[in-house]
């Protein structure tokens, strides 16, 4: 398999805005409500685990929204998948290795993985491997802000913010105020 090298930022041009700041907030609130509805009572309190780095920020936001909506204070964790990637040595730029933090044992719990963009499914496959090294959850659910399709593994989300049809040359970028950017989701395309 040849590595699919992500193009450098300078080679990408913005095609369109998928969500503005207000849209991003609205979408996350709806996702929070859907999570509260869809996870059965035995899965309480909810246990949200963000995939670093984008998913961890989103999990944090969903946690506050759920608490505001009257849910029992959800548990919040984060996983770092750098050491579990199947392309770790394929020449892809490697993100800094961050800590995996699970505040309580995941055994027997319903864990909701939260990611910003669901694409090939390989990140989620790696995140599930991380969870398996920490214990045996009763169930693992997946919430993603953007589903851009083009899966390479049989992985489907349970709660989706927005579905975007994309081509291989496009990429979705989730910009978050936690990273010092304005809240925004944009679709970019490789310069021809």
């Amino acid at each position, binding site marked *: 398999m040849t590595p699919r090298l992500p193009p450098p930022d300078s080679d990408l041009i913005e095609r369109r805005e998928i969500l503005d700041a207000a849209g991003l907030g609205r979408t996350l609130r709806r996702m929070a409500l859907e999570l509260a509805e869809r996870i059965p009572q035995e899965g309480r309190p909810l246990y949200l685990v963000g995939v670093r780095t984008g998913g961890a920020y989103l999990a944090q936001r969903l946690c506050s929204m759920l608490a505001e909506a009257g849910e029992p204070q959800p548990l919040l964790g984060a996983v770092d998948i750098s050491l579990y990637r199947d392309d770790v040595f394929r020449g892809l730029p490697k993100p800094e290795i961050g800590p995996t933090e699970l505040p309580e044992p995941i055994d027997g719990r319903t864990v909701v993985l939260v990611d910003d963009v669901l694409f090939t499914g390989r990140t989620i496959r790696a995140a599930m491997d991380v969870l398996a*090294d920490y*214990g045996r959850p009763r169930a693992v659910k997946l919430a993603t802000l953007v589903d851009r399709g083009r899966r390479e593994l049989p992985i489907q989300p349970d709660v989706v913010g927005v579905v975007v049809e994309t081509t291989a040359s496009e990429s979705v970028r989730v910009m978050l105020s936690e990273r010092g950017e304005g809240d925004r989701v944009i679709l970019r395309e490789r310069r021809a």
Partner: protein
Amino acid sequence: MTAFAHRHLLGMESLAAAEIVMLLDLGDRFLEINERPIKKVPTLRGKTVINLFLEPSTRTRTSFEIAAKRLSADAVNISGSASSTVKGETLLDTARNLDAMAPDVVVVRHAQAGAAEMLASRLRAGVVNAGDGAHEHPTQALLDCSTIRKHKGRLEGLDIVICGDIRHSRVARSNIWAFTKLGARVRIVAPRTLLAPGLEAMGTPGSVSIHERLEPALEGADVIMMLRIQKERIGGALFPNTREYSRYFGLNPRRLALAKPDAIVMHPGPINRGIEIDPAVADGPRAVILDQVARGVAIRMAVLYLLAGGDAGPSE
């Protein structure tokens, strides 16, 4: 983070300060894995690490083996007595044969200074120097820096005493390089017969000082590192006897009181209790000796990760 542009880890002399800091940061990341219920990540699955230890070692060899296994690499250990070197094979021939089996990393310990560098120039695998004669022992220096950084928050501006058999110590050499590169001052303490020439020239001017008495060197020290008297390397009579050595150069509670109140005590092991360090100090609250061992595994995980193909480069 800085990229690590080396295929081998041969010594601290050839590393830049930024590279040392990157290795320490990466080591901190791996610490967490050693606290997990399942202490293993799949990162180096399918990679082979050969530990070629042609000198006795328990701690370092075990540490490298555990580091490799926690990253899911296959670790093969070869020790001096079990190797073909006792049948007369040269180090290079042994290594060439191992290289033909396509390992990804060879960790080598050898009594001869320069052994690791010689292998690195001839093997396809990445080479880690786990101690070559009295030359260098870079992963020990990295784990020592990591331990100091944890307890003191930094190395810059610290006064670090290294006391003992400097002449035969690769640990002292690697640490002098590392400590001074990171901005610490090093006070070397040893009887004249156990000193080596050229130590002051290893750091920036003024950063390395030589002392023949322990007490004055301890005053105001932040870190005290005691080295073992290497009986197996000391051929002739470099000092009268261990009792006399202990009387002048052993670290006891009375001497420890001369250092800063929050000074930490380190020892690369193995300890000769009652010779270079009093048991009351070795087991006391200021000793961080077992911390050094714990951090050693994480540091070696970081080194294997980088040499087996990983990268601590920046995210997109």
